[in-house]
């Protein structure tokens, strides 16, 4: 019984940090007109970690992110680079505050992020798989 209570406690503690959105697969999406059809995990790491901000055809990319500490963002970086958001922020603070890299475009919510990608041919972002529409092209699926 003691062991059951212990496991139950652990499960209850973990519940708040695993939202519905977080377990849903995330799709990395681009503008429908973008000639790129798929990307590798390594290319996405280079792009979202500011190392090489371009598509596989060497065309410049414009990463779009959600503002703040959104669950989707936490989940995306944990799955992509295996880092908690604190370490991703620490890493990005080097790039941002040295002026080495241009910062990502920030949007307030998923709807605005999708609108931005639809309006910009160079844009790339990530959304829960359920939000994919015909106006977006999926280039990678995380956590499937």
């Amino acid at each position: 019984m003691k062991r059951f209570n212990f496991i139950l406690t652990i499960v209850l503690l973990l519940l708040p940090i695993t939202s519905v959105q977080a377990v849903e697969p995330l799709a990395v999406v681009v503008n429908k007109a973008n000639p790129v059809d798929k990307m590798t995990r390594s290319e996405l790491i280079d792009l979202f970690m500011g190392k090489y901000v371009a598509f596989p055809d060497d065309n410049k990319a414009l990463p779009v992110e959600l503002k703040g500490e959104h669950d989707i963002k936490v989940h995306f970086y944990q799955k992509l680079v295996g880092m908690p958001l604190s370490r991703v922020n620490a890493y990005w603070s080097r790039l941002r505050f040295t002026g080495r890299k241009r910062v990502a475009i920030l949007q307030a919510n998923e709807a605005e992020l999708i609108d931005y990608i639809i309006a910009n041919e160079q844009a790339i972002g990530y959304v829960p798989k359920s939000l994919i529409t015909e106006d977006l092209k999926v280039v990678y699926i995380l956590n499937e």
Partner: protein
Amino acid sequence: MFLESYKPFLCCLFFAFSSPALANEGGNDKFQFSGFATLGAVVSDSDHHGYRKTVNSDEAVYSGEIDFKQHSLLGLQADWNISSNFDFVYQGVLRDLPEPSFDRYTTLAFLRYEMNTNWSIRVGRTAPDIFLLTEYRDVDFSYIWATAPNEVYGIVPYRSIDGIDVTYNKRGFGGVFTGKLFTGSSETEISASSTTEKVKIEDVIGISLSFDHFNWVVHAKHSQVNIANEPESNAFLASGISQIPDFLWPNSQAFAQSILMKGQEVSYSSVSGQYQWQNWLASAELSQVDSESDVVPKINSGYAALSYQINSHQMYGIYAYTDSRIYDFNEPGVNEAALEEVIHATNSLMNFYAPNQDTISLGWRWDISNNIASSLQWNYTTLSEGGSTLWINKGESHDEAESINTFLFTLSMVF
């Protein structure tokens, strides 16, 4: 300097585009504000050697004191995305400075043009890419330690370079290669126990190369600068020595000439690497400062660090050292008994840039949230006789060997 000449233009540009009306009009994708801050506390146990973060500082921390000025700072940055190819960045960092001014507080103010994915060019004030951390050593949230190792970074006084840099990026061999060439000028202050000297450098030429393979990265950097002004201490002592008659100091004028620094070349070189394996992070850097000047000896420095992550906590250890020749007056034929004070002043000047010490550090970083972290670090420094360049001597003549404990606590954040 560059920024002095263009300050009115940069001010107008910054304030014009930082107005809320324009920010709203441009949309949140055009204009972004951000910042970083550190609240840092330091205690140290030496009565004679005062701890300081870099040789800029004219104040120091002695036994029985608690200091909040050495490591505390506030940085504010504005990024303006002018178009898909152009952006402008302004950054000001408020901190304790020996000679505060708008010019000194401004650490970044540049216009960038991205020609294509591979090439970009920046014109204006940028951070110095001399050693691995010199660009972001004041962004404490960005690295695990409470501070960058003094043995390597304490001797570098420059916080910015006014000029131009060109960067090339290319993906290949499973990673990303980056090469950067930069040129420009800079000025700053260097302090000793009783004096603060303005130091100007010009004709800076540097190259920075790196290969980043996500879990490991290697860097090689080399830059050289020309000293553009004569520090008052050097000029004063040289003038005094040159007037000493030959029977007391043969060829005193030649020696006086050798301690002048204006026009002398100084070079900075560094190789470094970082490797991440599961929860372990190892990093190391070897650096060298070399000069044509007799006053700046060859300084070899380095550090090796290892950290281990447990959830939001990281435990780390660092070993750092710096080594340079100690000058001991031995000029032939000089009447040392008659010139005791001059010889003492000569020894002090010739050892001003001669750090000799090593430090073992143990620390703990806690990521309190995704944007706030604390670091607690204990430094045990073994200081060699005559090698206290990185410290401030309370007693003018006290420069004996000593072992010093220093405790640092930083609360750092980004926003």
